């Protein structure tokens, strides 16, 4: 259990995929405009990550070196497609707002990176713990981002159509640039610096 826990915890802070490894930034930045998107993306991402880690840790002994990358990518792509189809079928609105970033999980460096670096060398349980940890780290990062961007960018918080909170006087003139791509860059850059300044992550 302790190795499970260790592998799980590592991905959350110490090797947080977004703020420490800075991998797989594309979906993180692109869909963090609302909490809904962030949650949907996290769910899809964690599913793909866990499933691919499990599958790859199961078959890694059999895979020939030459076609290792194509094989891994095909497995991941299949899982992504399955999630994509499911989302289209059952939560069409979410699927629409995630757009092409959902299928693009396929080429997310975190997924392939974990498959290569961890799952292809460890057992099923450890791989699962690792995937869950990394997935949680990813989820926390994207939730934090979308929280900030939605709150400051629109002046209010909505979650799945329910209105949660409005900053009085702010929602008339929110910092709407945060909803645009440049806003995401600004928030991530500032957060990264903030984490370093607080000593959560190391300076380069």
């Amino acid at each position, binding site marked *: 259990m302790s190795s499970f826990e260790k592998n799980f915890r590592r991905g959350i802070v110490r090797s947080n995929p977004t703020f420490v490894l800075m991998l797989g930034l594309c979906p993180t930045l692109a869909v963090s405009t609302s909490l809904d998107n962030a949650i949907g993306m996290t769910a899809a991402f964690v599913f793909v990550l866990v499933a691919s880690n499990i599958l790859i840790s199961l078959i890694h002994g059999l895979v020939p070196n030459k076609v*290792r990358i194509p094989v891994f990518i095909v497995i991941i792509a299949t899982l992504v497609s399955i999630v994509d189809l499911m989302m289209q079928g059952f939560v069409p609105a979410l699927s629409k707002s995630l757009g092409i970033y959902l299928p693009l999980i396929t080429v997310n460096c975190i997924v392939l*990176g974990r498959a290569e670096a961890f799952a292809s060398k460890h057992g099923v349980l450890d791989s699962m713990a690792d995937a869950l940890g990394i997935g949680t780290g990813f989820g926390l990062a994207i939730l934090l981002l979308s929280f900030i961007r939605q709150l400051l960018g629109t002046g209010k918080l909505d979650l799945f159509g329910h209105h949660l909170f409005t900053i009085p006087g702010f929602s008339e003139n929110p910092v709407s640039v945060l909803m645009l791509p440049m806003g995401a860059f600004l928030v991530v850059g500032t957060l990264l610096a903030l984490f370093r300044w607080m000593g959560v992550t190391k300076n380069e």
Partner: protein
Amino acid sequence: MNATITVTILSSIGFFAGLMIYVASKVLPKEDESLAEAARVKEFLPGADCGACGYPGCFAYAQAVAHDKQVFAKTPCPILAQDKGGMKKLEDYLGLQAEVIVGKKAVVHCTGGSHSIVEYTGLQTCAAATQLASGFNECPYSCLALGDCVRVCPTGAMSIDQEHHVAVVDWETCIGCGLCVTACPQGLPELIPANTPQYVACNYQAKRDIPGRKRCPDGCIHCHICEKVSEEGAVTWDEKKDLPIFHVTQVDTAIEKCPRHVIRKTVAYEEKELEVVGSAQETG
């Protein structure tokens, strides 16, 4: 029926892709020799080609590492860095661990007791300061304490003792790379075997006395006492510099007898008391 056809057609795309890779690997000539070492290094890398290390893909990183091992020490692959075992394997392969335990450590031949005779206002680097009148200290051979050595030290073993204005080495972290030796314009640091128990903390060259400049109250007066009281060969004399050279033999009497107390103990010095004193503390 329809499903079968689709599966067949799509699978054939997969088959074709694999076939192309196979054919390509068979038809094309062998890899160039210059890439062989990089190819071996790459075997240790995750192969995710994520680019997070700053190099365009794992093979490029491997090439850089094969070219200069320090690349791996300075910017380890972020994915591999989480995998202790993997790290270890590559470190072993590159022999990085072995390199850290080298048999030499740096010492600084100065006690820092010389005071400034002018007000130096130029660039705060030793290299710049020595271009004007051999530095600003009364002793023209003294440590200027502007930290050129500190800046080049890869492990942070060098530091400036602000009280005495002298560079000091922490032997625990010193890896004996010798960068400080080349960086110092005054030629004060020197690499000595890590088992040398003492060294002379002065570089004053009597044969090159400069009128108007003089040694500090702590400087070696070239009295040869250390040489005389020690057993044969334990202390030799550098005639060019007119300074003693100490070797691995511990010379307690010499340390005691030195009229200037300018012979410093290193961590390799064995004392009756169990307290181990580093040169860093000792220079004070």
